[in-house]
C-alpha cells in the first residue's frame, strides 16, 4: 500500500510520498479507502500545498505591495535564505525563544515533578485540588496573557505584594526591562502549563509497578535512593515524551508575547513566531518570512527526529 512506509517518527521534513489509496473494490476495500479520505484531503489542502507554496515563496522575491500576482514573481533562489542567516534580529529571536523554552520547560518540569510526588500521598480534598490545578491549561492563551499583563502592571498586585511583604521601595517596572519582561512571559507560560507536566508525571508515576520499589526497600534502599535509581529511570520514557511535546509547543509561543508585551520593549521579547508574523503580515515581506519559516520547519524536523531516538529503542 503505502510505498514508502517510512518508519521514522515525526515526518520527514520535506513532504514525501502520499500514501496510496486502495482503489476500486466495493465493500471493504472501498470502505477502507474512503474513510481516511477526508483527512487526507485536508492534509493536502492545509499541509502539503502550503508547504509547497512556502518553498516556492522562499525562493522568489515577492511582496504583496509589488502589485503583481505571486506566481509571477521573479526567482531569487537562495538570496532570501542568505538574508535570514545574516539577520541579527532573527538569531536574537531564535536564541531568545530557545532560552524561554529552556527556562519555562525546566521550571514546569521541576515544579510538575514536585507536585506529582507531593500528590502521591492522599490528603484531604485531594480530588478538589486536582481539579483546580487543571484550570490554567484550559484558559485561552489570550486570557492568560491578559491576566498576567494585568497582574504585573506597575500598580498591580504583584508589585503590591513585593513592596509590602518584601519591602521594596517602589514597584518593579516589569515591562520596561527586557529581562523582566521575558520573566513575566516565562511565568505566564509556567503558570499555564505546569499542570500539564504535573498530570503526565502524576499518571506516569501511578502507572509504575510497585514491586520493584518494595524489592528495593527490602534490599536496604532509602527513599531517596529509590527515587533516584528506580523511579526516575523507569519514568524516563514518559519524561522524554512530555518534554518533547511541551518543548515543541513552547517553541511556538506567540499569543502570550503578543498580548503581554507585543514583543517589546523594542524587540526585546520577540519570539521567533512573532518575528515571522511581523515580517509577513505587518511588514509584508512574505518571501523573506517564507524563507525563515522553511528554515524553522527543517530544523524542527531534524531536532524532533533526534530527540525521539532514545524512545525508539525501548521495545
Amino acid at each position, binding site marked *: 500500500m503505502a510505498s514508502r512506509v517510512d518508519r521514522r517518527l515525526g515526518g520527514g521534513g520535506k513532504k514525501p510520498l502520499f500514501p496510496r489509496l486502495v482503489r476500486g473494490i466495493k465493500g471493504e476495500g472501498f*470502505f477502507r479507502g474512503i474513510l481516511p479520505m477526508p483527512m487526507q484531503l*485536508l492534509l493536502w489542502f492545509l499541509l502539503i500545498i*502550503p508547504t509547497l507554496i512556502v518553498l516556492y515563496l522562499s525562493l522568489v522575491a515577492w511582496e504583496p505591495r509589488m502589485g503583481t500576482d505571486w506566481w509571477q514573481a521573479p526567482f531569487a533562489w537562495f538570496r532570501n535564505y542568505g538574508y535570514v542567516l545574516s539577520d541579527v534580529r532573527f538569531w536574537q529571536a531564535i536564541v531568545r525563544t530557545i532560552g524561554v523554552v529552556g527556562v519555562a520547560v525546566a521550571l514546569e518540569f521541576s515544579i510538575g515533578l514536585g507536585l506529582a510526588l507531593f500528590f502521591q500521598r492522599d490528603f484531604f480534598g485531594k480530588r478538589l485540588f486536582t481539579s483546580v490545578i487543571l484550570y490554567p*491549561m484550559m484558559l*485561552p492563551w489570550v*486570557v492568560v496573557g491578559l491576566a498576567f499583563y*494585568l497582574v504585573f502592571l506597575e500598580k498591580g498586585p504583584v508589585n503590591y505584594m513585593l513592596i509590602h511583604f518584601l519591602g521594596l521601595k517602589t514597584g518593579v517596572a516589569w515591562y520596561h526591562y527586557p529581562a523582566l519582561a521575558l520573566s513575566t512571559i516565562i511565568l505566564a507560560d509556567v503558570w499555564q502549563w505546569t499542570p500539564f507536566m504535573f498530570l503526565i508525571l502524576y499518571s506516569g508515576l501511578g502507572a509504575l509497578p510497585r514491586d520493584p520499589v518494595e524489592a528495593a526497600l527490602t534490599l536496604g534502599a532509602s527513599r531517596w535512593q529509590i527515587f533516584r535509581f528506580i523511579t526516575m529511570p523507569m519514568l524516563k520514557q*514518559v519524561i522524554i515524551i*512530555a518534554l518533547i511535546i511541551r518543548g515543541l509547543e513552547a517553541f511556538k509561543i506567540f499569543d502570550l508575547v503578543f498580548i503581554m508585551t507585543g514583543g517589546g520593549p523594542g524587540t526585546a521579547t520577540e519570539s521567533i513566531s512573532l518575528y515571522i508574523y511581523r515580517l*509577513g503580515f505587518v511588514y509584508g515581506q512574505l518571501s523573506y518570512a517564507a524563507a525563515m519559516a522553511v528554515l524553522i520547519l527543517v530544523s524542527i524536523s531534524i531536532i524532533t527526529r533526534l530527540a525521539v531516538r532514545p524512545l525508539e529503542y525501548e521495545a
Partner: protein
Amino acid sequence: MNEERSREGRSKRFMTLLGQASRWLGALAICLVILLPVVWVLSISFKPPQEWLAYPPTIIPVEATSSNYIVLFQPGNPVGGVATMVSSAEPVTKALINSLLIAPVATAASVTIGFLAAYAVSRYRVGGTFMPFFTLTTRMFPPVAFAVPLLVYYRTLGLIDTRLGLILMYTGFTVAFSLWMMKGFIDGVPRHIEEAAVLDGASPWRVLFTITLPLVRGGLAATALFVFILNWTEFLFALVFTSREAITIPVQVSHYVGAVGRFYGPQAALGVVASIPVVVAGYLIQRHLVTGFTFGLVRE
C-alpha cells in the same frame, strides 16, 4: 502507592496528622497561587474605571459594577462612566457569534473526520506507521510557518476573513488531535465484537456506526470537548486571517489590549466571558486532558 505508616503511639499518630495537615496547607497554598491571576481578572472586570489602577490594589471592588460587561455589548451606553472611553469600539456580539459558530462547526468536522480516519488506521492500518505520525507535523511546527503560505493561498481562493476559511483551517489543524485521541479509544474496543457482527452479515459501514460508534461515545465526547477548547482559544490564525467579518473572541480580546487606550475593565470582562465556555468544557473532560495534549501517547 499509599503506604500506611500509621504507627501506634500517640506521638506517632500526631506526626501523621501533622503530615496530613501540612500537606493540606501546601495544597492550599498552591491553589492560591494558581487562582491569583484569575481572581485578579475577575476583580477588575467588576471595577469601575477609577479603581482599575487604584493603589493599593484590592480584590473586592469598592464599588462593584457590571458596567464593564454591559459596555462590551453596547459600547455607546453611558453606564458607569466607562462608555465614554470605549465608545469607539464595536460591540463584541459579532465576535461572540463568530466564535460560537466557528468553534463548534470546526470541532464537529474535525472530530468526524478524525474518527473516520482513526478507525481506518486502527483497524486497517491505513497509511502504515508513517501516515499517522505525519499528521502530527501539523502540530509540531509553528503555525506562523503555515500562515505565511496560507495567506497567499487563501487570498487567491478568496477565503480571507470568511468564516468558512477559518473553519477549514481549524478543522485541518486539529484533526491530528482527533485522530490520535479517537484512535486510542477505538483501539480499546475489542475486535471480536466487530468480527461477530461481520459474521452476521453486516457491511463495514454498519459495523462502524452501529457497533463501534456507540462504544466510543465517551471518547468521542472527550475528543470533541478537547478540540473545542483548542478551536475556541485559537489566536494566531484568527488574527491573521480575519479582520471585520469573521473576527473571533480571542482576537477581540487582543483589540482591547495594547497601547491605544487602557480599558482594563472591559478587557477583563471580555476575558472572563471568553473563558467561560472552555472552563466548562475543560471541567467535563478533566480526565482526558492528558491524553489529548500528548496525542494519546501517554495514557492515563
